[in-house]
């Protein structure tokens, strides 16, 4: 890539970053300008991508067919014939926009109905793919099969049969870990029993424990999110103080 072009590209990025970060001071006109610039760029980019990467290869080319032109002989050979029936997809798709007219809005239900039908048909398989394995893996063994050692011993240097024996055992440390998992899942599930009164020490205790464990879980999720946000800020600083300054040094310092 041309060095000057690359430097300008980085410089515009730096100005845009500063413009957007200026909102940390207060909402400025600079911030508003770059916010709108980003929105406009994203919308424009999406429109082009919609044609280039979606409508053309998945619809237009299939409807009109495609041919390969040899760059040397300039002779074209047909790769795939066009299927005119793809043309019917356009009016079906356009029917979706009839939702805006009072007289014809019933027609918008046709494409929506097709989509909903496909969607509903897939749900059984999808549900099982997503949750089935998780339900199965929730059944964890909690009783250790050996007490030879508290944790699983290092076995890389042992003969294969001994390695296999060690791998097949449930050591107390893993059993405790599994027990914590099982208690957590039962307590968290008990928190969501709303169909009857939580009476008795066991049910009340389990409900309270479930609430506490959920809060701890949300705290961990929030912590992970905060960490992610910090990294985004660090990346912007790296963009300005490392990448841009490095390129500026190369451009003007010859380094």
């Amino acid at each position, binding site marked *: 890539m041309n060095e000057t072009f690359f430097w300008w590209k980085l410089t515009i990025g730096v100005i845009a970053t500063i413009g957007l970060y200026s909102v940390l001071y207060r909402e400025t006109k600079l911030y508003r300008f770059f916010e709108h610039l980003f929105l406009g760029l*994203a919308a424009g980019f999406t429109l082009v991508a919609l044609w280039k990467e979606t409508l053309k290869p998945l619809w237009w080319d299939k409807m009109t067919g495609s041919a390969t032109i040899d760059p040397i002989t300039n002779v074209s050979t047909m790769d795939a014939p066009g299927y005119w029936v793809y043309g019917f997809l356009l009016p079906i798709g356009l029917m979706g926009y009839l939702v805006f007219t009072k007289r014809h809005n019933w027609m918008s239900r046709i494409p929506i109905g097709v989509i909903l039908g496909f969607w509903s048909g897939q749900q059984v398989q999808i549900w099982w793919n997503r949750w089935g394995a*998780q339900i199965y893996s929730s059944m964890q063994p909690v009783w250790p099969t050996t007490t030879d050692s508290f944790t699983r011993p290092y076995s890389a240097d042992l003969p294969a049969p001994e390695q296999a024996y060690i791998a097949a055992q449930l050591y107390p440390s893993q059993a405790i870990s599994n027990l914590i998992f099982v208690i957590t899942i039962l307590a968290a599930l008990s928190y969501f029993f709303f169909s009857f009164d939580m009476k008795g020490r066991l049910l009340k205790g389990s409900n309270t424990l479930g609430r506490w464990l959920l809060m701890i879980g949300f705290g961990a999720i929030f912590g992970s999110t905060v960490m*992610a946000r910090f990294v*985004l800020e660090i990346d912007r600083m790296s963009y300005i103080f490392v990448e841009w300054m490095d390129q500026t040094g190369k451009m003007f310092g010859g380094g």
Partner: protein
Amino acid sequence: MSKPEKSFWEKAQAIDRRVLYAVLIVCTAISLFFKTEIPVNPDDSSKDLYVSLMTIDPNKTVLIESDWTNSTRGESAGHFEALMRILMNRNIKFVLYSIADPQAPQVARDALLRIQEERKAQGLKVYEPWVDYLDLGYFPNAEGHLQAVGNNIRTAWGGRKERDEAGVERDVFTSPVLSGVRVVGDASLLIVCSASATIDIAVERLYGKVPLGFMVTGVMGPNALPYYQARQIVGMGVGLKGVYDVEYMMTYGVNYRVEGTNKPKVSYREESVTIPPVTEGTTFDRGARYFLPLHVALALMILAIILGNVAMFASRKKRVVA
């Protein structure tokens, strides 16, 4: 009547947020210039992902779903770059595609170009499009697309064309990258490098059809953990820690003991697995560069929370005494 003078703790509670932002920006920017290696014990999920990547059949193609844009460059670029380095180091062919955002393919292309230029400068093999990798671009309707890939990958991607070595546009299934792929399971692995809920769609539509691996942001990490716990995915890297974990394992290997030492730097639960360090190309990069600033930022936040709480209790006590 003059206002009563504020105590130190009252002033501490009223620090302008812009001062805090300035301190954060200055501290993280300065710490970017210090290159320090922070010893870590990589997460089990990162180890599993790395071991999978280093042990898959190099003759099989890897599918990469790149669903990130510059809005999560801090984390996702590190994941993507490490993935590129690993695959290129092992000479594995790969296919790139996106389903989350029309901007995602271009962002992935830019990151790929950076790695290609880096490898060229290091005198390493540069990947050729069509021969070593395919860039299929963006597919709309994430759910419908992955459903189609799971049902029949040849139909789902059949219409796509790329230029071959001679510059002639041809069907992607005639390229050396996809010629051996009849069903999605013919790929050795599908890696989803994502900052969005496309990880859920991948599990819903492709679980059981092809081994899945995730490289996700810190925000998506907790969402993806149940999939790892239930073994629906082979492994995953989460956020910057995941990036650093992978870079650390590339540098030091897994279960790899340097002569004269008793313990490996990174030990793995399956002790029969030994992966030596990656010897060519870059290993420590974006993850290592951002890891210290992240520690600085977290330390600042913890300090601010402690200061805020101590100040609140101190000023409350003062009010009660008064």
